[in-house]
Each structure stands twice: as C-alpha cells, then as structure tokens.
C-alpha cells in the first residue's frame, strides 16, 4: 500500500480528497490509507452524505489523535440510542447553539469537573468564537487541549 503522494493518487481519489490536498503529504501512511478507503466508498454514498463528508473532511483531518478518538467514543455512545432519541439529539444541538457563551462555558466546566463525564481529557472544543475552554485535567503532553481551528 505504501504512502502515496498527492500526485500519485487517482483522479477519482483526488476529487474526493480535494479538501486534504494541502496537507496530504504531511499525513502518515496509516491515515492516508484510511482516507483512500473512504474515497473508495464515497461513490456509493448518497448525495447528502457526500456533501457532509466534503464539508467536514478538512476539519476532521486537523484534529489531534486524542480528539478524533474522543469523537469516536462519543459517536459510539450516541449511535446506540433509538432513532427517536437520535432526532432529539439533533434538536438539542440546535438548542445548544442558541445558548449564551457563558452558559456553554459553565456546562463545559461542569463536564470537566465531573468524574467519568463523557469526553476524553484534552479533547474538548468550544464552539463559541473567541473563547477558550479551560484546559482539561490531565491532558497528555503534546496534545491540544483546545480547538485547533476557530470558527
């Protein structure tokens, strides 16, 4: 499989992975392999799925390994919910967006203070622009406790 450079990808792969073009050569072989696997599945997805993937691909690639792992864990827990609960989650997210930044910070701080709260240390992100959530308790050295990108 190896670690192909961007120029070595097929045209279809380049089209799917276009958001990753600037950073492709900096990715390790394992991540390149995963993205190429995604590119192979891409044609079989619906148009909505393809659009969502294209919109989030770059953000996902910019996450730290800890953040990606935390996202996977949270997704797995939400995936187990019944369909009606999943709809509620989407509604709650919309409601959460309307909360004032202070309340969001308070909720985030409460999550960090609660033992066994969902989310891995060092993996929190704040969606409120210009704000940085307090660093997590025991983040491993080198990991980004705050978001790497700002909206």
């Amino acid at each position, binding site marked *: 499989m190896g670690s192909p450079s961007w120029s070595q990808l097929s045209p279809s792969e380049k089209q799917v992975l276009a958001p990753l073009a600037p950073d492709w050569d900096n990715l390790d072989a394992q991540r390149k392999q995963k993205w190429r696997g*995604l590119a192979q599945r891409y044609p079989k997805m619906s148009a909505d799925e393809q659009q969502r993937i294209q919109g989030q691909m770059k953000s996902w690639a910019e996450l730290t390994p800890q953040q990606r792992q935390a996202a996977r864990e949270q997704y797995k827990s939400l995936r187990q919910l019944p369909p009606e609960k999943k709809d509620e989650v989407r509604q709650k997210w919309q409601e959460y967006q309307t*909360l004032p930044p202070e309340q969001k910070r308070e909720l985030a701080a*409460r999550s960090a203070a609660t033992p066994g709260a969902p989310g891995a240390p060092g993996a929190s992100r704040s969606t409120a622009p210009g704000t940085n959530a307090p660093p997590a308790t025991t983040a491993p050295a080198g990991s980004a406790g705050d978001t790497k990108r700002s909206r």
Partner: protein
Amino acid sequence: MIRDQHEFAKKLTAYLDNGAAQLKAGTVYRLSQARGKALAALGQPAWTSEGRAAQVHAYAGAGRGTASPGGGLRKGAWLWLGVVLMAAAGFGYQQWQVYQQTREIEELDVQILSSDLPIDAYLDRGFQTWLTRFQP
C-alpha cells in the same frame, strides 16, 4: 627335476590314502579329535567328522542400526517446521487483528463525517453535559 617331484608326491599320496583307508574307526575318531584341538589352539575353525564347522562366528547387530543417522535430522526438521508455522500463524492473526481494527475505525470515521451532527457536537463537553440533563 620337477617331474620327478610330482611322481614322488603322487606315489606318496597314494600310499598314505591306502594306509588311512586301512585305519580302524576308533583310531580315525581319536585322530580327528586331536586335530580339532590342535586347530582350536591356533584360532581356526575345527571341522567335525561330518565336515561341518563347529565354531559359529556371531556378529552382534551386524547390518542392523538402532537409529539411522538421517532419522534424527528429519525429526529436527519437522520440529523446526512446526515452530515456523506456529510463528507464522501468530503473526498472521496479529496482522488480521490490526487490519480489522483499522477497518472498524475507518468505518466509524465515515459514519461520523456523514452524520447529521457536525464534528463539534461530538467534541463539545458543554453539549455533552447539556444532553445529560435530558437523559432519564
């Protein structure tokens, strides 16, 4: 000269044969025994009066190998082959597990990226706390 010697040997042999034929049976037997003892003392097989060798030369294990030199090598080769096969099987299983884990993560990432919720929803601790408020 040589011819005279042959003549003489021929005549002498005939005389001795004639004399031996006139010997009594007991005398012949005693002469045979004495001859056998003399030859045994010299380490040579003695012939009985019937003309068969009395001494048996036994060869213990002659031509019979307890273990052929090639048997040990074959046994060792099979043992090493088994070890190599087991090591290969263990390595193959480990690689298969890594492959399975990679495929599982890949599948998960695709689902996350294509889900209705943005990535931030899975990372925002405040939102996770917000959700717990509404869980029974």
